[in-house]
């Protein structure tokens, strides 16, 4: 059950998308968001959606995976739809009942919202699907390195992110294990009122915190005994490299975004 979480999980592969420089991928994700939120025309939105599907095909990530990662946001989408459809004030009333009215503008707005939510999740998920957490944090460190000039602890921040990302699956696994152990001892997490349920979480939280603290201590010792002392003078085994693929993709992204934005101003 807990292992069904797919956001942030990497999908190993050998596609063009996997091979792109992670720094560029982060920039592309930002450009993609700009494109997404600037797309107001029908054609522009269609292009954006097609682009998302195109990227998934290119990265050879099964679409079922995408659907799985969209599952948790279904309640949010439904909530938004209901609100938008019935409470958006518009001119062209299709249907009216008390304070609830259905307008053409409301329907349009809902469509746009749904398009944006789905695209933003699937588009940004692509970054973590095709980039390992080490590549990702290295890229963030490299992109933020100008901030070093103002004494911002860029390296420490990226190391913290690496460690945090690295331990998410471990902690999930551990939670699963402790939950199973307590369930075997007859613990019940599903019934009772809120207070009872919160109390029932104690047998999970205490061992989990305890092992997280122990693990943190062990990790610190391990890092120290390998002479870790922060970012100063530290070199990288894998230097981030960009090449033709990245430049071409960058140009492609910019052109596509320009196209989508300009479509807003063209009347058909």
């Amino acid at each position, binding site marked *: 059950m807990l292992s069904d979480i797919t956001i942030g999980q990497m999908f190993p592969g050998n596609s063009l998308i996997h091979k792109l420089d992670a720094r560029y991928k982060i920039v592309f994700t930002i450009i993609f968001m700009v494109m997404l939120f600037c797309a107001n025309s029908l054609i522009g939105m269609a292009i954006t959606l097609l682009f998302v599907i195109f990227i998934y095909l290119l990265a050879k990530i099964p679409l079922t995976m995408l659907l799985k990662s969209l599952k948790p946001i279904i309640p949010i989408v439904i909530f938004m739809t209901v609100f938008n459809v019935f409470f958006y004030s518009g001119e062209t009333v299709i249907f009216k009942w008390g304070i609830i009215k259905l307008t053409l503008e409301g329907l349009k707005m809902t469509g746009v919202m749904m398009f944006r939510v789905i695209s933003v999740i699937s588009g940004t998920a692509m970054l973590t699907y095709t980039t390992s957490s080490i590549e990702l944090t290295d890229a963030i460190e490299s992109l933020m390195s100008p901030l070093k000039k103002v004494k911002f602890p860029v390296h420490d921040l990226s190391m913290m992110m690496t460690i945090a990302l690295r331990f998410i699956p471990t902690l999930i696994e551990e939670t699963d294990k402790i939950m199973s152990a307590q369930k*075997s001892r007859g613990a019940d997490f599903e019934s009772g009122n809120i207070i009872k349920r919160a109390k029932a979480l104690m047998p999970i939280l205490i061992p989990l915190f305890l092992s997280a603290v122990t693990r943190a201590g062990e990790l610190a010792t391990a890092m120290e005994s390998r002479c870790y002392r922060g970012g100063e003078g530290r070199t990288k085994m894998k230097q981030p490299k960009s090449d033709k693929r990245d430049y071409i993709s960058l140009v492609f992204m910019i052109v596509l975004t320009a196209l989508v934005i300009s479509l807003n101003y063209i009347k058909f």
Partner: protein
Amino acid sequence: MTVLEVKNLSYSYGSGTPFYKKALSDISFKIEKGEFVAIIGHTGSGKSTLVSHLNALTRAQSGSIILNGEDIYKKGYNIKKARQTVGLVFQYPEYQLFEETVYRDIAFGPKNMGLSESEIKSRVISAASALEIDKSMFNSSPFELSGGQKRRVAIAGVIAMNPEILVLDEPAAGLDPKGRDRVMRLISEYRKNTGNTVIIVSHSMQDAANYADRVLVLNEGKLYLNGTVDEVFEKADELESIGLSVPPITKILIELHKKGYAVPLNVYTAEDAAKALLPLLKKEVK
């Protein structure tokens, strides 16, 4: 009397993703009341996955588990009953300890069963004495104890629920040799005193040979061998072909046998080996 029957059990992880893995395929076996069964196999052979099915923590995609004549996958079956009948002690169970005192931690299981205060007390006391936990430890925090003590407290926490079938996943893993022997001995004594069924998961051939009546060998999610200790360790070559081996002492005797010495092959402990080898030694001296 058969207390537990596993029929054609199959289970796989992450179907439809690149992480798909078949963990168990078509496993069937029966366990009789009062038996001591060892499940052995390599890391990743499916041992732990198999035992998590026995008390319905994991649900198999196909197959069935019959507990005391009732199918636990049947609609309307009370899962809680399965969890009380089959007590499962996980690998490194000391990580499940959470209460303020040892007494309260052992009492957690019985309390969840809704027993009366006096019944809980007697269960805790008998479980603690079965695991040689001194009463003076009852009021100390479980986190102050040594590794071996924690392990015994955690096992007592499951035994206190008085399960008909006690399943232990690597109960001796990570303990020093003395701690290992002690835990294994206590489990064996517990079975003798209560007549309950015990299943252990282990990768120690020595433990399996010393304590179990019957051995199930798992390999890559399949039941590879199922027989008495003698029947299984007789097949030393087959075990070696899947990367397992016989207990070290048995191996010495097998090698001697190959060299032409008349020694028995079903010897698993140092004492028995000494008995078997002494006559040979006397002959050589003559």
